[in-house]
């Protein structure tokens, strides 16, 4: 064990940081994009979403390797390739959950908000978004966890991250390397997931908790 760390320790540390960097940046970008697009989609008539949502769901099934591979062929071996690919992926869960969260706000609250004299923008920020927040954060959580997984693919194009260990391990059948890459990735996903769980709890004001569903 000790020898492992002496040989690989520095590399592992670097990989963790690089991996974390990819995840945080992509999720942030994906969150902003997903939130905005989700809000937009919720304002469009239902016909649009009936068509767009299934298409988006299907896009989500595109394996990450395809996306990174394609972008790599276009953009080459730059961090931008990884970040763009991961950000796009991170967008989908947030988009979907934002849309679902907003459209599930009960009509009576919308009516009360309009009736009180809130402009559409005020109704959105003071009533709809707060009520949709638990669902939206749920989407953020999904997004984060998927991104930790997909960021492994960064090493496919030589851009570092914990995938380095996993790939080398799989190729040379070195279990220790595989595990050295897999476990920190798993830990990272679990820790980030727990952080977001905590955030989700905090984001729900006491009054909503009884109504909130898991």
């Amino acid at each position, binding site marked *: 064990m000790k020898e492992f760390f002496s040989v690989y320790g520095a590399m592992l540390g670097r990989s963790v940081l690089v991996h974390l960097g990819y995840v945080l940046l992509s999720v942030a970008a994906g969150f902003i994009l997903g939130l905005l697009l989700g809000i937009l989609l919720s304002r469009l008539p239902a016909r649009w979403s009936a068509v767009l949502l299934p298409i988006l769901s299907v896009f989500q099934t595109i394996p990450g390797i395809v996306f990174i591979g394609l972008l790599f062929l276009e953009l080459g071996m730059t961090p931008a390739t990884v970040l763009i690919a991961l950000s796009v992926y991170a967008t989908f869960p947030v988009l979907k959950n934002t849309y679902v969260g907003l459209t599930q706000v009960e009509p009576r609250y919308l009516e009360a908000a309009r*009736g009180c*004299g809130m402009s559409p923008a005020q109704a959105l920020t003071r009533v709809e978004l707060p009520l949709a927040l638990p669902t939206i954060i749920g989407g953020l959580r999904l997004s984060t966890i998927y991104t930790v997984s997909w960021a492994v693919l960064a090493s496919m194009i030589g851009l570092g991250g914990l995938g380095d260990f996993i790939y080398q391990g799989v190729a040379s059948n070195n279990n220790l390397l595989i595990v050295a890459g897999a476990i920190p990735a798993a830990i990272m996903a679990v820790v980030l997931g727990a952080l977001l769980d905590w955030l989700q709890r905090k984001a729900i*004001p006491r009054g909503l908790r009884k109504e909130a569903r898991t």
Partner: protein
Amino acid sequence: MIQFEHVSKNYGKSTILHDLSFTVPDGQFLILIGPSGCGKTTTLKMINRLIEPDAGKIIIDGRDAGQMNPVELRRHIGYVIQQIGLFPNMTVEQNICVVPKLLQYDKTKCAQITRELLEMVNLPYDSYAGKYPSELSGGQQQRIGVLRALAASPPIVLMDEPFGALDPMTRETLQEEVKKLQKQLNKTIVFVTHDMDEALRLADTILFMNGGKIEQMAPPEEMLEHPASDLVRSFLGKPRAAESAPIRVEDCMRRNPYRVSKERGVLECAELMARSGVDTLLVTDGNEKYLGVLPIRNIRLYGRTVDSIVPLITREVRTVRVGEDARGVMEYLMNSGDSYVVVLNGDDTIAGIITKNSMARIVASTLWGETT
């Protein structure tokens, strides 16, 4: 003041509102009522432009509502809905202060408004301001809903079947409170309901709608007495004791009480009373007009010293006229100790007397139908 001028609304081929025109003066409690689909809710929602008319104008306090910014308009009109609609993500205080915040009142003012309003409905600020709607009962929630509508002191408040979702006891309590608040704060309230009892209890004026048109617009008593159509009448249903048209004195009097003219002798009257088993005689003059009553007591006391009954006549007994409400008589008879009241016609001739017995009989027949 709210004026509807030739307002119409269509959805596709069907007409919801048909050339509707009416006026609601300031400070009045107007109730919109009618069968399902009559357009009452649509009418209500046109006042704060949640629904826009296809034709006609709505003038609020002299200004054409259609020309105003709808969002601005709604901030000056209170709005209470049936499903309550308190924002679950906000506390009671935050909910109440929604419109004041939109109008940019400062924090202290908002807190003060909340405090005052909560006091008015007996919900102490310290316990309730920080609670969330999910922690309140349905009745409490709707109270807060009403307070929210009042917080920015709008001159007009719209209520769309606000108590429909509550149990009868809570509903009654809240109806009382709203009526009280309206009088206290002098608001104009436009209230939609399908419950006639509620309408009769709360309204200053009832607007009965059918098929997008006005069937009748009148104060409750008038509508009860003179329903404009069979539809209205059927909505009013069987009159019940407290809410039916008031009972009048001629409904509960005994006609043809024992009476004598003032010419009769003392002995004659005493004999008459003994034979008939009464202890009083009504006395009329030559024109049959009422003079007073002759109680047996007076004969006993003074009969030997006089030879005419005239000095024995007393006018201490209470009289009422035909057409008056019997309720006052009932209360009088209960409380005063007198055993009867005389009912006079417009020309002062005697119509009858009301005794506790005759009163009881009419009450019984009203409650349970004709008795023997």
